[in-house]
């Protein structure tokens, strides 16, 4: 349907370049689902829910910059919740997130705890000053932290934290973050693909499964409606981790992790 108008009720500064906005109504999303957020006069972009009425935005370009110029009382257009959410299965969950990708995982972890699951988190940030939601994760269970610059926790990429944990001991692994990070984790957890759910990112335009912008090789999965949460065994044989399509539809190579 048309975008609904939603008023910003609260703006929370998470880091210098990440903010959480509380909107004036709950969308009843599943963790992992997203909304299309219309910054009027600028653009419409996908944003994961970091809570029933929350989104957490990293400033990276024109649309997200425009979001940073909004204040309490301003309104945005919203369509959602959209796409598939994470599905909660088993008794123990390992959440692995990087950067602003930890946002939907915090929401997921809270839902997992609410149904009595055990939650362990492996979180990676560039630096301690960029870490978000550490308190939310710590309330849920054990947290393993990595930073690229070593300012806190293990020094290195997120996957460096895997040595502190036994991934195979968890019933389900939930991933969200930079593609190279997720790819790296999936490779290191070979054989467990059917127990890994990844929330992936592609260029989303229509968000209703018609324009073709978000489709991934080799099966033509429409990430906007059949994702963004996809089981890892459907991600290993194609473009994921290797390249992704930009706004024109042409492929760009994914930056490698090292």
């Amino acid at each position, binding site marked *: 349907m048309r975008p609904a108008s939603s008023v910003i009720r609260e703006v929370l500064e998470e880091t210098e370049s990440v903010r959480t906005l509380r909107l004036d109504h709950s969308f009843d999303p599943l963790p992992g689902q997203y909304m*299309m957020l219309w910054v009027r006069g600028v653009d419409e972009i996908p944003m994961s829910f970091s809570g029933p009425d929350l989104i957490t935005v990293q400033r990276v370009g024109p649309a997200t910059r425009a979001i940073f110029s909004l204040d309490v009382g301003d309104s945005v257009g919203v369509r959602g919740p959209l796409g598939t959410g994470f599905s909660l299965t088993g008794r123990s969950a390992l959440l692995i997130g990087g950067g602003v990708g930890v946002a939907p995982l915090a929401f997921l972890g809270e839902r997992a705890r609410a149904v009595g699951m055990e939650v362990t988190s492996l979180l990676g940030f560039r630096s301690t000053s960029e870490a978000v939601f550490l308190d939310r994760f710590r309330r849920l269970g054990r947290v393993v932290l990595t930073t690229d610059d070593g300012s806190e926790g293990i020094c290195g990429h997120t996957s460096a934290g895997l040595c502190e944990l036994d991934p195979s001991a968890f019933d389900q692994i939930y991933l969200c973050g930079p593609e190279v990070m997720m790819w790296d984790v999936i490779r290191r957890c070979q054989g467990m693909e059917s127990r890994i759910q990844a929330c992936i990112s592609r260029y989303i335009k229509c968000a209703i499964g018609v324009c073709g912008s978000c489709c991934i090789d080799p099966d033509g999965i429409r990430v906007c409606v059949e994702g963004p949460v996809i089981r890892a065994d459907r991600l290993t044989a194609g473009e994921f981790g290797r390249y992704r399509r930009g706004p024109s539809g042409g492929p760009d190579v994914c930056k490698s992790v090292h």
Partner: protein
Amino acid sequence: MISLAGDVGGLRLRNPLMLAAGILGTTGASLARAGREGAGAVVTKSVGLTPRDGHPGPTVVRIGVGLINAMGLPNPSYLAFQQEIDLAREGGVPVVASVFGSDPSEFSQVASGLVADAFELNLSCPHAERYGAEIGCQPANVEEVTRAVKRAVGAPVWVKLTPNVSDIVGLGLAAQQGGADAVVAINTLKAMAIDVESGYPILGNRFGGLSGPAIKPVAIRCVYELSAALDIPVIGVGGVGCWQDAAEMILAGASAVQIGTALSGGYQVFRDIAAGLSKYLVRKDMTLEEMRGLARRRS
């Protein structure tokens, strides 16, 4: 099951249902999927000379009666697109390359730079400056572009027409005159939606094209008028979502039917419509050929 196979515009199709241009046509994989999931042929996203990112969002608004879109012809350029067409072939059905350009030579350059089973000339997109309907609303342009591409390529050439004119038959005749192997009708109606709360036009490009159920009655009328006037086949498109819609198109005179907006309900629309059409033909004890254009003989 009765056969739905036939020859349409220079292609042999196992059934007359095609994926419409610009619908899940950006990647070879999504095109191949449409073939695997029952389409009789697939048409690619329209491709042009140079890469385009398309218009800013929102690019698609869903309204009760259909969609309004202004994608803005995003495409990686024809040079980057051949690999998608090659992959699309793996779907096992003909792949039609939709091409756009701003003049006959641009159209020819793009089409002759691609290898495909047929070409569909987008002379009808209502929301991209200098392209589509801006040139395609003049019969003379349509004829000239068609002729140029016909000269440049060996494969069949179809011309997709705009309904945003007072006389679509004039455009169809021009395409036929230019040597087209079929016409495709219709592209979207030029339209707009405004956000009542903020006053902003919703689409990033303000103007867009209306598709889906809303435009079916206009499409049926265009197909009926065109198929009465032309010698070449008419491929119907606009608002087809169930077998009755496809049947209406064929009764109006369509040789094949393309499906766009209805894909938002999933790929199974191809199988569902094919099954419905087959049952209908059996019940009516009719062939597809006998069904075609029946409405013209009934009035």
